[in-house]
């Protein structure tokens, strides 16, 4: 499903964010990406959706070489991959419902289906009451949940969540995690970057540990710390 072959990423200003990363994620996997602040988790995620290009190495997602893909196909890749961004990336001039619906509309869905699926996603994250708020009128956790709803609304084959519970209280966090686990059980590949040791330790899924851009640990049924 996802394969990184010897991938390095050096940002234009000289920072090495990833070094010689080899990683293979099978369809239906659930993997935690852990590591200190600045270890390269978000960078790895950016490579998967071609928000950034790898400096060296090859990134393959769903059989396609992401780095070699023509620009005109990039949007198709992104539609297959739902992403909860660490900084949410909500459209400031669209309401909660419009932000969530947007991910459906870009894939060509229309009308009643869009409305129904949007309401379903909003109720899954508990935001039905906030559907007509603009992002600036939301609490931090509500913004984060909007981002989660948008990532899963079109039932993508791959779901990537970058620190999806950073602004959520433990109760809400657990609800979101249970939701993601259920989605994974239905066959969706799940990659989640997180600092939440409690959740990682409780679920005991595969853990990939990054340190200064290198994979220093890759365990099935791992813990947050070695």
């Amino acid at each position, binding site marked *: 499903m996802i394969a990184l072959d010897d991938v390095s990423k050096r940002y234009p200003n000289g920072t090495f964010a990833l070094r010689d990363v080899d990683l293979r994620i099978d369809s239906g996997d659930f993997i935690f990406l852990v590591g200190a602040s600045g270890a390269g988790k978000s960078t790895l995620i950016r490579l998967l959706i071609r928000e950034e290009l790898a400096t060296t190495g090859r990134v393959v997602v769903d059989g396609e070489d992401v780095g070699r893909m023509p620009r005109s196909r990039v*949007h198709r890749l*992104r539609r297959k991959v739902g*992403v909860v961004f660490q900084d949410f990336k909500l*459209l*400031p*001039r669209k309401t909660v419902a419009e932000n969530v619906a947007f991910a459906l509309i*870009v*894939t060509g869905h*229309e009308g009643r289906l869009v409305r129904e699926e949007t309401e379903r996603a909003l109720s899954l994250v508990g935001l039905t009451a906030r559907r007509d708020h603009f992002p600036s009128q939301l609490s931090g956790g509500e913004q984060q949940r909007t981002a989660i709803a948008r990532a899963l609304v079109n039932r993508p084959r791959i779901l990537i969540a970058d620190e999806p519970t950073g602004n959520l209280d433990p109760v809400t966090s657990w609800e979101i995690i249970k939701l993601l686990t259920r989605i994974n059980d239905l066959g969706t590949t799940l990659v989640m970057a997180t600092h939440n040791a409690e959740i990682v330790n409780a679920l005991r899924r595969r853990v990939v540990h990054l340190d200064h851009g290198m994979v220093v640990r890759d365990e099935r049924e791992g813990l947050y710390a070695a």
Partner: protein
Amino acid sequence: MRRVAYVLSAAGQGFWRNPVMSLASTFTVTLMLLLFAFFLTTDRGLQAAVGVLESKVEIALFIDDNAKVSEVLALKARIEADPAVSRVDYVTKEQALKRLQDIADRRKDFVLANIDGNPLPASLEVKLSDARQAKRFGDELRAEVGGGVIADVIDNPQVVDQLLTITRVLSVGGVAILAMMLFVALFVIVNTIRIAVHARRDEIEIMQLVGASDAFVRWPFILEGMLVGTLGAVVALSIVFAAAGPVTGAMLDFLVTLPISLGPEFAFQLAASVLGVALLVGAGGATLSVRAHLAK
């Protein structure tokens, strides 16, 4: 269908949910279009004025007293065939004398002594439609002086030269200004829309990250640009047509000797060009600026 509805509503949202930016852009567009309309109108007015002035350019041919009527008529026909000529009048010896007497009566500096018979020649007075041809035309006829028909060729005096200089400057200058204004107006509008779009580059980036194709991102912005353009055009044209009546009135009072007025046909042309420019530039400006952000 739904797709179209989405694009339209997204364009409207982009406009109304960012009112400061949209209204400032619209206002700028309005002003530039007003300027554009103003110069289009002035240019038309100038061309009309130049026409009026140039039609006053005249050349007089004095006819030899011994010329035959058939020769004079042939000459007249020949002159009338020249494309630069708008009108030819035959002035008889008697009419010429009458005129001279009229002038003498009005001006004290000419005193006519008793005249035996009529010393004045008959003449052809030629009005030119294209004043720039006056020299060529005069020179051609002057070559025939002494040939038995034309006794002399008199061009209009130097005052008309000055008039012509001015009108020529005005008309060439008018076209130059119009071109310059058009360029400036287009550029300012494109720039304004570019700034407005640039301010929303984060939005564009987010749309792309969520899987929107380039076309999907582009269309609402293009339509929004066209909306800005259309609104600007509507406001500008409303101002122009509201002001047209009073301004024309004032101009007519002022320009008694140069009565120029532009008809409803011109009003239609004006509205069409302003709207066309507005749409084109709104859409073009938005396309250009969105493309700049998409390419990255």
